[in-house]
């Protein structure tokens, strides 16, 4: 059974600081996705990582994928209050012929002014 774990579950950080969110998964996959969810809202796609070593950046967020370690990271640079949200990673199981996304536990980020 595929398990997707994120840490930390909760993160409170000061504006201007850097931090990394980790996403570990338990089975072979070379496709990983990051989403953002604001309170009471739906999920918004942030990054699509499709191969080992993939790196994507958008503003203050950078995501990377290491399929051999089964690990993805979401790095936050010089955090600002607007980044406060819950961040989810999701893994698409490889080799099954279907595409179903299994989500991590989520990381609730609060950036303090």
């Amino acid at each position: 059974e595929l398990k997707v774990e994120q840490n930390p579950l909760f993160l409170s950080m000061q504006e201007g600081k850097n931090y990394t969110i980790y996403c570990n998964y338990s089975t072979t996959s070379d496709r990983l996705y990051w989403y953002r969810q604001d309170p009471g809202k739906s999920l918004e796609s942030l990054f699509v990582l499709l191969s080992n070593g993939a790196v994507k950046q958008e503003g203050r967020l950078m995501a990377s994928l290491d399929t051999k370690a089964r690990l993805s990271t979401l790095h936050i640079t010089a955090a600002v209050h607007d980044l406060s949200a819950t961040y989810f990673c999701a893994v698409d199981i490889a080799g099954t012929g279907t595409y179903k996304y299994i989500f991590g536990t989520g990381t609730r980020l609060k950036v303090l002014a």
Partner: protein
Amino acid sequence: NAGVTQTPKFRILKIGQSMTLQCTQDMNHNYMYWYRQDPGMGLKLIYYSVGAGITDKGEVPNGYNVSRSTTEDFPLRLELAAPSQTSVYFCASSYSGGNTEAFFGQGTRLTVV
């Protein structure tokens, strides 16, 4: 663009009642999904479909049924509602070729009392 549309947005059910959550997408995606999100938690896959007439169970299918008669629509049926089914339900869709993220609807907030 409408994307993925869910109705209703909110619903209160009494224990033992039944209802259908509607989901439609206008992106011609073959893959569709139903997830539930309990308060403060991640998303759990209930059912998914890889095309009209084809559905399969996800992580937490008990108490739910689905059907997929058209590419656009993927309704979720709750039979004999229970308090444990109080949750926010998200419908999502993705392109059949894989290597792409899922797009989410705005969610249905269901309370069973």
